[in-house]
């Protein structure tokens, strides 16, 4: 389930779990369950932060929608 969440959703779910745990308003069973979910979410978020590497592209031909790597250093 967690794999389907993007970074934002995963982080906000994690923060929601923390809030819930802090409220103490959960059963022991549920607390353990959401704690485990939280640990998994934190791991996913971390790896998303580490692994993703964005690209910088520029559209060089608007009619044919041709894109090309864009180097800032060339400006």
């Amino acid at each position, binding site marked *: 389930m967690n794999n389907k969440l993007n970074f*934002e959703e995963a982080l906000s779910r994690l923060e929601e779990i923390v809030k819930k745990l*802090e409220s103490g308003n959960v059963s022991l069973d549920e607390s353990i369950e959401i704690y485990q979910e939280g640990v998994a979410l934190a791991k996913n978020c*971390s790896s998303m932060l580490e692994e993703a590497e964005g690209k910088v592209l520029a*559209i060089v031909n608007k009619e044919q929608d041709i894109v090309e790597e864009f180097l800032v250093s060339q400006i």
Partner: protein
Amino acid sequence: MGSTKIFTVKEINHYIKNILDNDVILSNLYIKGEISNYKLHSSGHAYFTLKDHDSKMKCVMFKGSAGKLKFMPEDGMAVVIQGYLSVYERDGNYQLYATDMIPEGIGALYKAYEQLKVKLAALGYFEEATKKPLPFLPKTVGIVTSGTGAAVRDIISIIRRRNTMVNIILYPVQVQGEGAAKEIAQGIEYFNIHNNADVIIIGRGGGSIEELWAFNEEVTANAIVHSKIPIVSAVGHETDFTIADFVADLRAATPSAAAELVVLDKQALAARLNQSQYMLNNSMNRFLQEKRTKIEYISKGNAFRQIEQRIHNLMQTVDMCNKSMNYSMMQIINSNKNKLINNIEKLDILNPASVLLRGYSYTSKKGKIVTSVKQLAVADKIEVQFKDGNIVAEINSLINI
């Protein structure tokens, strides 16, 4: 009148027209006045009267010139018109053919800016309620700006510096001059058609109002307002406000500021994540600790103590019962023992042998104990029992006592 040349109306009108057209002053002049009776025909030509306190002049501005005006002429507006005087031969009227017009006092562009602002505000283009929120963390940022220059360089550098996760797609456009606004609009449409950006930055570096003009045009405003993708407008410097800034979902003071608004800093995200992770463990530990404390508290509590006490009490009762039972039993045994001893003593007293010991003896006749003289007669044989033996004797006489 015989030899006099007779002209037609048309000839005279044509003649006057020629004079006017060839006049150095009238063929290219600037004239100031107030616009009245302004009518924009569906053909695109504008007809109006230019007047001052004492005088009036018919004016026409053809579509080619009227269409280029950045502002909309209005009745009562003081303007300076560039143009020429000529004759409309059909009606025999002379009129001013306007080729350009600038509002007097304030600049034409500023006037146009003000007018478009009023118009778009009425259309609801600036409503806060319709503004789209920026994505928390865009996967891809679309940029519509010049492919060369400081603006694009600043935007890309800052995005890359803050967060290397983000993709960037640049749609290079002219940001000033003829057709710039149209290109900017096309750039916005491009990202909407391909749906390949989560947020769009449009903008350019600083410049004069003329240079920033593409961002004050209706075509740009329309593209922004129709974009399904949130748009951040970053035009010029902090003090420059363009129509695009008002229509966009968010105004950034500068292109650099736009990059910072659009992309969260990776370090800040990582810190937030760490914080959450720490709090997750912390709150779980605290949660468990709380439960433990509660268990401890309950186990030390009154309810448990009462049970314990009851058990102790019962144990004591059992002990007491046991003790008193034993005591009673002892009592019974002892009293029986005493009775027995008593009886044994009584028995001892009653034992004839013990009487004999004290010197008494008893008499029997034919095995039967004699307790009275009357049982006996003279010459009866009797046995007398002593403590250490017996004798047989014969009765000599009976003496009644």
